[in-house]
């Protein structure tokens, strides 16, 4: 038990030193020293509550994905049936209760339609289900309903794209080291250290940037449009900015427009005559061709430029635009125009994102917390060391040495694992120091007891370590259980706290039990004491 072969001693020291040395970059950083370039630099990152910065939780609405899928399916079905060798006429097409409904006018064509529509559905990932169900009710009414599996898959894909778009947009702002991660099925966490005013960021992320060009239906009756009644085949879209607080509305053709997502560039520009801010977009070849086709077929008619469901402007097409680029005018400021340019360049978000949680911490508060945390840790550790030294003498020295080693090991491992130190994490650190002593106290008290029972020195030490280990083991397991649940259910700073606790529990068992046992046994062998001052 007290016999430590050389290889074991080396192994223990090697493990301890590697962990402890990994803490040096962090310690150097706290002391304000520069870490030499070229050396590996595992460093503990400071959480937002210490470094200051913004945390934003964005949420997408899955019902929006459902609606989008139904709209896309409607277009696919229409196209497919129109392109058939013998086109099938359908009518009464509608989005009802989250499914696509339409009537096939000629009941003898039911099977042909079913065959045509079936290839439009796909398998939903690895679930073994399809992403749509096709039913025929009342003889000739088709009901196409997206399945839950299909929706889930679409949401996942949309969120993956959204994360990429969010990343591009934040990079365009030039912010440093943002963290962007998926959270749950339909959320994205964005953390930007050091960002004090998240307003620009939120504006940028709140903009879906879905750009559409649609023809204005000039035949619609203005009275109906004002009341929001859309003529068949039309939809009513409001203007982005209204005069006198009421946004005027306009009727546009639902189909036949083009989407502004096939772009190669979007840039801030200005109108030479009015000096107003505008955005110049450049289409890719496919988008350019479509745009040319749309404009050349409709010279002299107005078309609406629609951004996220709001009309920016509705200019008249004076001539066919064949050059592949277009200027978007609207009621822009320079800021909002450059923001739109960034959004268009990074692509449209596949879904709208809504801020559901937001936390911003100023930099002074965090700096103050770190300073006070350090002072508290220093004073606490010092007072504890004195207490342990007067209580256990030589053994107290071992316990204190283990304690200091433990602190370095925790910092080192945190740096290597790449965890962030949060405000509660500092508390966790201090707490771990207090609790790490417990293992030593248990062992030393047991050794005292065994001595009182008349055991000889070596035997008493051996029994002390052995008997105390049951309680140490059980106690630390329960702590790990609690900390693991904290990690699983906690958010942000609380997670950081849990990580510190878990690392601290592991290292404290190592230093307080393994290290001190090695030191004590080496001393016993060297000094061969007849009695223990304990």
């Amino acid at each position, binding site marked *: 038990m007290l016999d430590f072969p050389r290889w074991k001693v080396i192994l223990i020291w090697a493990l301890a030193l590697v962990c402890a040395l990994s803490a040096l970059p962090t310690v150097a950083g706290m002391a304000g020293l520069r870490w030499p370039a070229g050396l590996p630099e595992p460093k503990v990152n400071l959480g937002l509550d210490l470094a200051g910065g913004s945390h934003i*939780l964005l949420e997408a609405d899955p019902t929006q994905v459902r609606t989008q899928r139904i709209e896309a399916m409607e277009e696919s079905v229409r196209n497919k049936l129109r392109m058939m060798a013998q086109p099938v006429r359908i009518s009464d097409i509608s989005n009802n209760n989250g499914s696509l409904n339409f009537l096939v006018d000629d009941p003898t064509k039911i099977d042909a339609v079913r065959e045509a529509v079936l290839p439009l559905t796909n398998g939903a990932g690895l679930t073994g289900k399809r992403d749509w169900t096709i039913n025929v009710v009342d003889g000739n009414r088709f009901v196409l309903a997206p399945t839950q599996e299909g929706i889930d898959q679409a949401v996942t894909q949309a969120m993956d794209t959204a994360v990429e778009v969010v990343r591009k947009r934040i990079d365009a702002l030039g912010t440093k080291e943002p963290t962007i991660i998926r959270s749950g099925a339909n959320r994205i966490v964005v953390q930007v250290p050091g960002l004090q005013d998240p307003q620009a960021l939120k504006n940028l992320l709140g903009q879906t940037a879905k750009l559409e060009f649609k023809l204005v239906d000039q035949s619609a009756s203005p009275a109906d449009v004002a009341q929001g009644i859309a003529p068949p085949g039309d939809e009513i879209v409001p203007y982005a900015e209204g005069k006198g607080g009421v946004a005027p509305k306009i009727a546009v053709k639902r189909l036949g427009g083009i989407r502004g997502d096939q772009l190669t560039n979007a840039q801030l520009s200005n109108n030479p005559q009015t000096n107003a801010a505008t955005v110049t977009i450049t289409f890719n070849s496919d988008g350019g061709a479509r745009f040319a086709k749309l404009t050349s077929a409709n010279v002299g008619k107005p078309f609406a430029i629609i951004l996220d469901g709001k009309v920016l402007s509705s200019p008249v097409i004076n001539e066919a635009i064949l050059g592949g680029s277009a200027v978007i005018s609207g009621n822009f400021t320079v800021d909002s125009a450059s923001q739109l340019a960034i959004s268009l360049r990074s692509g449209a978000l596949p879904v709208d994102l809504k*801020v559901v*949680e937001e936390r911003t911490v100023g930099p002074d508060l965090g700096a103050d917390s770190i300073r006070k945390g350090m002072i508290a840790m220093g004073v606490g550790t010092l*007072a504890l060391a004195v207490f342990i030294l007067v209580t256990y003498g030589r053994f107290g020295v071992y316990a204190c040495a283990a304690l200091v080693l433990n602190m370095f090991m925790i910092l080192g491992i945190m740096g290597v694992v790449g965890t962030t130190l949060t405000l509660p994490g*500092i508390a966790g650190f201090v707490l771990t120091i*207090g609790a790490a002593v417990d293992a030593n106290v248990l062992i030393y008290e047991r050794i005292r007891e065994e001595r009182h029972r008349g055991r000889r020195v070596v035997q008493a030490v051996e029994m002390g370590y052995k008997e105390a280990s049951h*309680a140490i083991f059980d106690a630390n*397991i329960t*702590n790990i259980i609690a900390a693991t649940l904290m990690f699983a259910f906690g958010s942000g700073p*609380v997670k950081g706290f849990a990580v510190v606790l878990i690392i601290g529990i592991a290292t404290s068992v190592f230093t307080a039990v393994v290290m001190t046992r090695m030191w004590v046994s080496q001393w016993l062998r060297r000094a061969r004491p007849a009695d223990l001052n304990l």
Partner: protein
Amino acid sequence: MKLLKLVPDHTNIHFLKWRVPFYVISMLLVAASWGLVLTRGLNLGVDFIGGQMIRVTFERSAEAPVGVLRDEVTRLGYGEPEIQRFGKPNEISIRMKLPAGAEHDSTLSDKMARTITTAVKQAHADARIDGVDSVSGKVSKELGWDAFRALGLAALFVAGYIWLRFEWQFGIGALLSLVHDVSLTLGMFALTQLEFDLNIVAALLTLIGYSLNDTIVVYDRIRENLKKYRKMPIPELLDLSVNETLARTIVTSLSMLITLVALLLLGPQVIFGFTAAITLGIFVGTYSSIYMAAPILIWLKVSSKSFVPGDASGDVPAAKRA
């Protein structure tokens, strides 16, 4: 060198003689805590009720002008703010309900934060905005549910672990003393109206881990003595076990308290409530491991048969030490 001995060797204090009155007192305290929680309520932070919290420090004032501030913010038309101090007298938080419609349009809550911070900064040149938290009602409900689930699961898992390692009576004892410790801590929050936020839940979870340490040490010794002294009456055996581990209990609790008090007095104000919760919990946990966790074993009729292999009782497999 003469070493410090807080607890003399061979103490023989009859702790368990007072088990009934102490149990009654403990139960009354738990009941009082829950009474307080239910009547006064916890001062729940925006984490759990949703809304907006703006932290402001008045850098050149000894004390924050709370009354003036309340009028100023109320005048902005978002309703009456809840203003409370945290930490020093010149540090305050302004809590607001989110404006109507903010659940659907988050720009509304942005606008409110903007209006309030601008107004405060204009009226007070030394006001420093230290942070803005906006939590929607939906997220706050989830956070609350997650916290509740984590606490419940932690208590059950830990008690389950004790049951596996010891005996079912010990598991129940551990669970009871946990309920006792957490209840009293909640009672403290209801009494002092310190803000109850996500960090406090982390503190409670930590408490579940650490307050059990004492219980486990005492239980471990009881288990050992049950095997050693088969004929000893249980109350006497429990007293012996508590006395044998008394020195360790005192020294460890003191060690924890030394570091925690340093953190409480010198540490960051923002986590005062967090540290206070853990400090109280450690204190209460030490008491409960002696007066809640141990006596319950008498009433649940633990005997040395529970741990001696080869005996005719049905508990043989559990007696195996892992």
